[in-house]
């Protein structure tokens, strides 16, 4: 009886400390970042393109665009290939193939991001520079590298979601005369939607937050990119690039960059979650 209570309290304590750690980090970022946003003005901070930290000018518009562009590109690649792979594995392959292919894709997640960045710099960047033009370091290079990096997350969670769809759905649909493809995209994918959305959100989180590989392949210019071949700087790389040097207001501005990043991730997650919930509810209403 006593050991029961002790264990309950130990668990409570561990859960609480993990949560409070998160809360403290959040509080710290906001405490450091918000004053400088207030001083510069939210609109100027977000919509100005002048980032000259040594002269006291802080505008992060190009980096917001950069983060969004690179993330969007990565999601196109990650979701198309990841979801495609998951559908192929769960619907059109034998269990043996899944048991071999899924772990090998998950192995990709274990590769450190510097390695992806390095491969990007050594192989992808020169390839883009020579075949498509531009500096090679670009939105496209960053998107491809990030897309490959989110692939394991998207694939393995989608596979789990698709496998969780009851067999009876599939059998019922086939019995009603639907083809395999009709069954897959009208029944199975819809039934697994919430899991797939979770996969996309997690992948997106990784893409927005990834730093090292992006610094290596994105070029880090301060200009708003006009094409896929233009170099770009993301919010995370801005923090990582200048963190070592920043002091005073510059340092606070980097925390403010973190605040914006925080808000962007929250907004993206909320949108993705509400969209999937609303669709799910509408589907139920029908």
């Amino acid at each position, binding site marked *: 009886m006593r050991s029961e209570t002790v264990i309950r309290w130990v668990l409570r304590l561990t859960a609480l400390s993990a949560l409070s750690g998160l809360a403290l980090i959040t509080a710290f970022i906001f405490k450091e970042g918000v004053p400088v946003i207030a001083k510069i003005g939210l609109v100027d901070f977000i919509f100005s*393109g002048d980032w*000259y*930290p*040594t002269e006291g000018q802080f505008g992060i518009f*190009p980096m917001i665009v950069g983060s969004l562009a690179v993330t969007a590109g990565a999601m196109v690649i990650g979701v198309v290939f990841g979801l495609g792979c998951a559908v192929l594995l769960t619907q059109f392959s034998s269990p043996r193939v899944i048991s071999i292919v899924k772990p090998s894709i998950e192995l990709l997640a274990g590769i450190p991001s510097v390695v992806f960045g390095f491969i990007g*710099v050594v192989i992808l960047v*020169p390839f883009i*520079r020579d075949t498509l033009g531009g*500096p*090679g*370091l670009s939105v496209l290079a960053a998107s491809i590298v990030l897309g490959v990096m989110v692939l394991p997350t998207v694939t393995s969670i989608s596979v789990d979601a698709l496998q969780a769809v009851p067999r009876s759905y599939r059998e019922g649909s086939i019995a009603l005369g639907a083809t395999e493809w009709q069954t897959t995209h009208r029944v199975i994918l819809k039934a697994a939607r919430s899991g797939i959305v979770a996969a996309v959100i997690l992948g997106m989180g990784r893409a927005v937050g990834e730093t090292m590989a992006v*610094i*290596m392949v994105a*070029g*880090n*210019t*301060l*200009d708003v990119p006009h094409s896929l071949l233009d*170099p770009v*700087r993301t919010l995370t790389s801005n923090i990582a*690039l*200048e963190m*070592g*040097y*920043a*002091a005073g207001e*510059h340092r606070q501005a980097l925390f403010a960059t973190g605040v914006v990043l925080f808000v962007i991730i929250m907004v993206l997650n909320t949108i993705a979650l509400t969209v999937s919930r609303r669709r799910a509810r509408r589907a139920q209403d029908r």
Partner: protein
Amino acid sequence: MKWFLAAAVVILVLIGLSLGLGGSRGGALNVVGSTSIQPFAEMLAQRYQKMHPDRYVDVQGGGSTAGLQAAANGVADIGMCSRSLKPEEPFTAFTIARDGLAVVVPLSNPVDTLSRDQIRKIFAGDILRWSEVGGEDRPIRPITREEGSGTREAFVKLVMGKSRISRKALTQESNGAVKELVKNDSCAIGFMSLGLVGDELKAVAVDGVAPSAAAVTSGRYPLVRPFLFVTQGKPSPGAQAFIEYVLSPDGQRLLEKEGLVGAK
């Protein structure tokens, strides 16, 4: 229960070991700062420790500004700074060497010489094609270092003056990354420590003077910056000893062998 005990023992042993190692290095001399000076400082530290096996020098990068900060708040015994100090920065500074700032292009680029004015216009984004400065008809891609880098600040001070580096300039976070990029991109131009250029890049002549240790010593090459060791107030005895070694003929010879110019 058994495995739990075993794991606990292993963890305790590991903690003990790390404490023990940490303890024996308790008197380490922390040298922190510029990534341009870092490789040279590491070499000096290695030599110094060979001579004095009981002393330990820990060299870390982070950048000039970080080095100054670390020296100011006592985290580092010595800060490394690869640009001259501003008047409002009150440190005790020791010039350990002088370094030419090389403007580099890939070997394939036929341009051999640029004026300081041309370099400024290139990095400001006013000159956009190599043909405007006597090269092939290609775009110019300037590559700069990140805000706060000592190399960048020295470049801004020596070349840019009041002009700003163009927003379109690619930004790389280390000398190595600049080197890698310039080496492979026929349109690129960058700048870095003369001691780090190596033979895979071409350092162009600036205002007609080819960069070399001799040209830096004689003062003819225009882009020269000091490599500084800074301390807050008087250096501690340990720091003093290391600085004295660096400034000794032996230390200076080592730096000169690596392509820097002695402090004199």
